[in-house]
């Protein structure tokens, strides 16, 4: 119940790194990509988008994007 939302939210907060501005931005970018992937490729892949992209983003910037 709502677990997918919880994990997505957790990942987005990790990526944003503690600022509301970057949080909004990361929600917009990653959430948008999730919707695009679900619509044009497959809903299964869409379910993975945020988690996988957040993992990649955190590999590039472990501390998040708050002070980019």
């Amino acid at each position, binding site marked *: 119940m709502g677990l997918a939302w919880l994990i997505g939210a957790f990942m987005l907060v990790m990526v944003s*790194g*503690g600022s509301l501005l970057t949080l909004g931005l990361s929600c917009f970018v990653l959430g948008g990509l999730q919707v695009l992937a679900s619509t044009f490729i497959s809903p299964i892949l869409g*379910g*993975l988008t945020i*988690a996988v992209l*957040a*993992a990649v983003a*955190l590999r590039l910037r472990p*501390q998040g994007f708050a002070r980019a």
Partner: protein
Amino acid sequence: MPDLATVHDVAATPLSRSSRPVLRVAIAALVAAAMIGGGPWVLDTYTVNILVRAFFVAIAALTVDVLWGCSGTLTFGQSAFFGIGGYALAIVFTQFGFGPGEAMLAVGAAVGATIVVAGLVGWLSFYPGSTPLYASVISLVLPIVLVQFLYSGGTFTGSSSGLVGFESFDLTLEAWFRLSGLAVIATLVATSIALRSDAGGVLGAMRDNDERCSYLGIDTARVRIGLLVAAAVIAALAGFGYVGFGAVAAPENAGFVFGTQLVVMVALGGRGSLIGAVIGAVVIEVASAYLSTSLPFIWELIVGVAFVAVYRRTSGRAARRPARSRPRGPPAGRDSVGAGHAPDVRKAQRRTRARCYRGRGFRALQAFRQPVGAVQNLVYGATGRTRQSGWTERRRQDHLDPLSRRWPRALRRQRAHCRALD
């Protein structure tokens, strides 16, 4: 700094441990094996059934304990390897039927797939300069990705209902009980022997001070990847046995929730204590089976509350201390210096401080370390585990050292964290 003494301690402990603890472990293992052998005559069928599953879960919990308790990587991903092992068996037996050759193929597929996935995850998680938090996040992503793949697999993976109705090993319930029980004991003994060795000492040293290990020439990233692969293979074999016994492979066995349950089992049993992980897993599994019928929804709540209570009790001090030591620590000092400075200087200071405190919740979760209660002390008495007293010894040295007395442990760790981020 007491850290030098810590490293020396770690190096010296395997030598100072005489054959006495080994003898104790051997006796405890023999007693446990005897209990396992006689168990089916005493226990009723339902309990034996539950215990077989609990034993396989306990092996997976043991690997979580080694990763989290002994080497300091909080992992939610062991459930994924458990699921890979189980699904390897289910897919092979569904596609090719059951037979000795097929069973070998299934074991090979389980181990091979696990090595590939664990190697990939390890390569992604551990690299020079990686943070434990990142490894945890990757371990969180892994079961989610795996379950999505299982859902999308159609009839090949059985989608959301899993794979059922394949022919599995034809063993009696008693044989399964003895097999799984002996597997737990063998894993327990092998792990404790491995952790007592010099290589096992490296794990504790990595957990306590990863940077210093790197300075000493230990390739910590490689050691952690190797450890993850080994732990993943063991978890996969446990999942193999679990599905082989139940003849049902469900996506829940590979999912994120199960991974969290494994962490809760280890936390309740006592992080860093091998026998504690097994006891935690068996108690929670058996209690879940009995109580989930009489207290269907309340039971989850009870486990959750117990987890929070143990969390408060074991890491409450570690979580609270930074808040108390903040006013007399360097951030406050810098703040008073910066009081007369331009606003942008103060802003930068505020940022630095925010950086210090971000992720404290996660590090507090890393602080589960002490034995939990009476059961633990009983068990320590029986097996002669001395890891916890080593920690107490270190804390005592912390207090003796004037330098570390002036800088509380939490504060020092925080400052190291700040430096690492800069």
